């Protein structure tokens, strides 16, 4: 039995070692080296990259990224909860509705981000329509700002919130709500005292599934935020490309990873069950 299990685990373990474990070790080593003249890394070993992280400029970027991710997560939660609840309580078409929630995954995020640019830019669909209707005289600045980034983050990650919420809400015994009503609770009370607390595991899973990818995301802030609203994902990308500072990029990556691991550890400590 044990040998069989080892055999079964081996391919996945090898793949993960090669694609996650080794790059991580490389990254960890880079983070303590100096930058090479034309990119890459060079000796000597140094702690300089970590000292730079404390620079208000970079600390600010990290803080802003946390804020953007938190805001996007909160908006996702607020939008996804009623949606997940109504799908979970739908008498029919549940699977169709769920499939619709996941439909965007059928198209690359890159394409969908460009679609948003097409919608939001000065000559985009929204502005053109509003101007044709004479509601505005000049285009609204919808793209390349903080709001566009958060909108994009919410859009891209909403399904990751809906699915765990749905899973938690769908398995709630409908008799519990009847019991609450039977004992005197009106709908709002029953929601507050029964539905919501029982959905807590789904809420926690959804928050993690949205917050963590939002924190490190690069594509959305880069495309919808333009160059202006720089978030940590873009910062890392810049270090490895235009700035040619691989050691510093590695240090920022590791710092971000550490922050995520702390969050995961806090969540896992709360309960013994697996995340989903």
């Amino acid at each position, binding site marked *: 039995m044990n040998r069989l299990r080892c055999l079964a685990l081996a391919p996945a373990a090898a793949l993960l070692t090669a694609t996650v474990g080794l790059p991580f070790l490389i990254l960890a080593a880079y983070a303590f080296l100096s930058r090479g003249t034309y990119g890459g890394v060079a000796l000597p070993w140094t702690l300089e990259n970590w000292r730079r992280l404390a620079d208000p400029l970079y600390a600010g970027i990290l803080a802003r990224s946390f804020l953007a991710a938190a805001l996007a997560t909160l908006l996702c939660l607020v939008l996804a909860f009623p949606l997940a609840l109504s799908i979970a309580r739908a008498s029919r078409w549940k699977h169709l509705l769920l499939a619709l929630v996941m439909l965007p995954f059928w198209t690359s995020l890159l394409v969908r981000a460009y679609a948003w640019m097409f919608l939001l830019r000065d000559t985009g669909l929204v502005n053109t329509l509003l101007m044709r209707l004479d509601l505005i005289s000049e285009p609204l600045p919808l793209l390349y700002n903080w709001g566009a980034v958060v909108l994009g983050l919410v859009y891209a990650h909403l399904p990751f919130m809906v699915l765990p919420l749905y899973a938690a809400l769908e398995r709630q*015994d409908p*008799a*519990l709500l*009847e*019991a*609450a*009503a*039977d*004992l*005197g*609770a*009106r709908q709002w*009370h029953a929601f507050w*005292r*029964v539905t919501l*607390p*029982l959905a*807590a595991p789904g809420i926690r899973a959804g928050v993690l599934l949205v917050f963590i990818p939002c924190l490190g995301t690069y594509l959305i802030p880069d495309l919808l935020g333009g160059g202006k609203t720089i978030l940590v994902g873009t910062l890392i990308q810049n270090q490895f490309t235009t700035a040619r500072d691989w050691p510093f990029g590695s240090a920022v990556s590791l710092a971000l990873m550490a922050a995520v691991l702390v969050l995961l550890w806090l969540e896992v400590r709360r309960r013994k069950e697996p995340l989903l």
Partner: protein
Amino acid sequence: MSAHLELRDLVKQYAKHTALDGLSLEIREGEFFGLLGPSGCGKTTTLRLIAGFEQPTRGEILLRGTRLDGLPPYRRNVSTVFQNYALFPHLTVRENIEFGLRYRNGGSSRRAVEECVEMLALGGKLDRYPRELSGGEKQRVALARSLVLRPEVLLLDEPLSALDPNLRKQVRTELRALQRRVGITFVFVTHDREEALSLSDRIALLHSGRCEQLGAPHELYLRPRTRFAASFLGPVNWIGGMGLRPEATRVSAQAPPPGQPALSARVRAALFLGNCLQVEAELDNGERVLAEVSRFNGAYQTGQRVYISWRPEDEIRVAEG
């Protein structure tokens, strides 16, 4: 005596079928009332209509003469013990029991909780979660959660079905004693005739959304008015147009004294069941009868000629149909 809970001509139609087809019942104050019937007879629907989880298509529900139908569940002074108990899994036993108290006015709620906890022997379990309880304990929590609100009527949906079979007889006795002690009107639903007979003061036998027969357990068992009622309440031998319970069917090797109704038959099988003998016999006209006779009554061989007799007062006479 006027009715405590009255159902008047209740009709409940769903898209594809009619669950209740004109059910009228009068339930008396303080009685343990059984709704008995096969699955699909409308008994659970009746309970849900009284609780307010569903609204009747037509008809009225009155509690002490006041209309209940149309009110939401949280405004009805009745409470339900669900078949699977529907305890709140995220709340402790104490929190479950206290759930409804904030919606009821009255200052003596703490005393009510203590009373219920004591009465249902839940003292040591108050800080447990439902998943840490046995089936019997869950049921007692569900009972406490409802009884603490002092409802006018307690509704119980198949109260024994979720329990271990070994536990059922014990809980049956306890439930009966509990009802006597609190004096609240209990209305319960079951498909199990033994449960209905042993727990109820009166039983309504439901069939196809109507009340087939209403009466005390012994009336339903001994004097069923229809073939359906007779068969649903227990095995019955149909001899000519007349029914006879197996335990009222006598078997003897000698002819019974003249004047007593008797038929001659041949034993097809005699099974020893421990507490009795089960004799299966074939009458001369080919009909089969089943008799449960005392094991002190002698032994029977397959093929033996016997007499089947009975007391005229044990005959079950039903309306044809």
